[in-house]
């Protein structure tokens, strides 16, 4: 497991990357594209989270993939290549099996990409990106993110205090426990609301509500970011061009039909592979720099 260098890039680079790979993974029902997406998301999740990701991917995502692949033919009976009939008379077709497999791949890839997204796109990056467009809401987000850990700690304090007056959530019958749990929630609510008044004072005191509020960020778009951003946009353009000429999808029904392999399609595949691998490439380069220094 190495330290992720891609996370240190400007949020706009991070966000564009994830937006692109997520949308492309959802749209392009093409074996090569799905394969690339699945493989790259798997690689990146391992780079980000190490052994934990391997275990998660194999233990949860693989069975999910198989389950979904089996599920589709049970509902979907389209397709011309009939393999056999079910007891209720519905046919199982080759097309629907492959289609199920493809959608399962897509879904698992998306889950896997999201697991990477959750590591890289931390809340402060999100708040930065949307701070200018939706300043009020993004401030609410920031406040909620501040309050939640505080409230969780307070719940602990309150439940200990309650335990010390003989009211324990962890024992007693279910009704008592629920009652004590509600008491804790109720104490917490009052505490939170009354204490928030001072927070509001602190905001007003620091001039919140004056017209012309700006939104500061510590993120800077430097040359490194620009270089990666531009190359990313280039690759996205190639992939989109491929989509426009119909290289990125295949037909499943009524019968399977893949777009033929040409130099153009090879180019699009490579562009997509490069796009998906950007973080892994950056991380590897970064790692090697330190090895040779």
């Amino acid at each position, binding site marked *: 497991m190495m330290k992720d260098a891609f996370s240190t890039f400007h949020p706009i680079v991070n966000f564009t990357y994830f937006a692109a790979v997520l949308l492309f993974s959802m749209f392009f029902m093409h074996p090569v594209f799905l394969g690339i997406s699945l493989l790259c998301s798997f690689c990146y999740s391992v780079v980000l989270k190490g052994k934990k990701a391997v275990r998660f991917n194999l233990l949860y995502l693989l069975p999910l993939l198989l389950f979904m692949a089996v599920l589709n033919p049970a509902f979907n009976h389209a397709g011309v290549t009939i393999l056999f009939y079910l007891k209720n008379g519905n046919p199982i077709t080759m097309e629907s099996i492959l289609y199920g497999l493809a959608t399962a791949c897509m879904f698992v890839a998306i889950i896997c990409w999201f697991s990477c997204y959750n590591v890289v796109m931390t809340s402060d990056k999100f708040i930065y990106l949307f701070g200018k467009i939706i300043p009020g809401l993004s401030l609410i987000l920031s406040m909620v993110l501040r309050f939640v850990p505080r409230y969780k700690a307070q719940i602990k304090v309150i439940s200990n*205090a309650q335990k010390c007056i003989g009211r324990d959530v962890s024992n007693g019958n279910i009704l008592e426990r629920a009652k004590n749990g509600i008491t804790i929630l109720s104490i917490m609510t009052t505490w939170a609301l009354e204490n928030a008044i001072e927070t509001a004072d602190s*905001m007003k*005191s620091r001039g*919140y509500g004056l017209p012309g509020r*700006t939104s500061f*960020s510590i993120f800077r778009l430097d040359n490194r970011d620009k270089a990666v951003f531009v190359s990313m946009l280039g690759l996205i353009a190639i992939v989109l061009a491929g989509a426009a000429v119909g290289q990125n999808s295949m037909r499943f029904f009524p019968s399977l039909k893949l777009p033929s392999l040409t130099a153009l399609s090879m180019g699009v595949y490579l562009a997509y592979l490069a796009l998906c691998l950007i973080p892994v490439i950056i991380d590897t380069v970064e790692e090697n720099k330190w090895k040779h220094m």
Partner: protein
Amino acid sequence: METYVIRALNFIYPLMEKPALKLVNLKVESGEFITICGKSGCGKSTLLRHLKTVLTPHGTQSGEILFHGKSLAECDQRTQASQIGFVLQSPDNQIVTDQVWHELAFGLESLGFDNQTIRLRVAEMASFFGIQTWFMKNVTELSGGQKQLLNLASIMAMQPSVLILDEPTSQLDPIAAADFLETVKKINRELGTTVIITEQRLEEVLPMSDRVIVMDEGEIIVDDTPQKAGERLKAMQHHMFLAMPSPMQIYAGVENDLPCPITVRDGRKWLDTLVSEKPVFAGPALDADRATPERHFQQHIAATGIPDATNNPVVIQLKDVWFKYEKDLPDVVKDVSMQIHKGQFYCIVGGNGTGKTTTLSIISGILKPYRGRVLLNGQESSKKSNQERFVNNLGVLPQNPQALFVKKTVELDLYEMLSGMKLSQEQKTEKVKAIASLAELDGLLSMHPYDLSGGEQQRAALAKVLLLEPKILLLDEPTKGLDGYFKIKLAGILKKLNATGVTVVMVSHDIEFCARYADVCAMFFEGGIVTSNTPQAFFSGNSFYTTAANRMARHLFPDAVTIEDVIKECRKSLCQTIS
């Protein structure tokens, strides 16, 4: 140029008859450091909040407030937001966002500065306050002291010309508080920012102040340099003296007309002069016996008599107790053994993170040691059920009393405590009445718990806990944020309980309080008890970790620990010199 001129300011809260501020006249020169003191409810916070329009409470107001020569009401919000910096009491409540850097920039964002300017200002502030090491952290990871420093820095980033602080250190431990006040001093000295502060910890803040303003019942009664203010208060025989630093209190208790000492260093000099030279008496001494309610109380105790508790049976016993929070974490409590007798007032003192609070939680059974035994009344604590442990046995007052309030009035809250018990309505009423009078809550029963002051909340929470009729009372820093007056009240209640055989175990940073009231003090360091003894033996044996009175007088009266001890010794030695 005056920063503030206040003329004949009156203020009455809605639905109240008594004014919160009465004819307040005050001038604040630019660059001054002004401390406002007075017991809670004297109107000092109300006065501070009048210095910034957005924080001014609702109510009827008369008189005028000028800011930089212009009526404050006419100053636009933008000027006020940037020019008047306001730091509030709670380190946690003031923080709005989840990231340190964002918090620092918050005010500047409101003022509409561009990214480049904010970047520069934030960098400046982070360097000035030494925040750069935790600049990128999440707010949750900070300590209380760091949070308050962040609040100060995020206000200073707006470059205010006046900094107003409303009891900023009341929630901090002594070390963090001293750090914080030192930074405030630095701001005042190095940037020339006017500082107006209200504080309970006058020992630290008075030596920094140019002027002290003492308020009582909404009026300014003294407005002078710290030294002169001390002399004036002494002349007035005012009870506010109880809140003054130890050297000033001792000064007031001894007949003399030397200049009033403020710091321990001044106090030592004063004491030397007092003892070596024969001073001429002119002014009357503050009659300590009459002026302090606590004296009353001590006389009362002396009359009724509390037997020495060490002969009583042992109620709490810890045997070789070890504790850590997780398997891979270091030990927090290491090999602690202690015995606490019935009816004792046992204080655990020591720095932050030495395992004091953890030990308290081990006694209460919230935490379980992985080695060693905890015996309550000779029985294994871990074998008891929660019900057995906490009803009629152990009472725990949490550090934050708000963790106990459920209902919308204090009275309902007290009844709520009895809801699970099989008692008739009359019995309940009787119990609540008795407890309310013990905790001095009589006038507060119909109020919302959150509308009470900190000291009143403390007593209301204590009353709740006492309804379970505990035989052992565990307290975690009960004096935090209380003023001198409320501390004496609390001590009175605790001593009354002691007299009825209740054992009190308390964890505290407040050594002055422990020295005065404890039967035994134990010092924690590195997860273990370093020493434990009676307060007198304990504090006179220490040279740093001891009361201010002892530090001031130890070269002459090594056994004098409390202010009263020193005053007594002074009087004795004066009598000798005279005769």
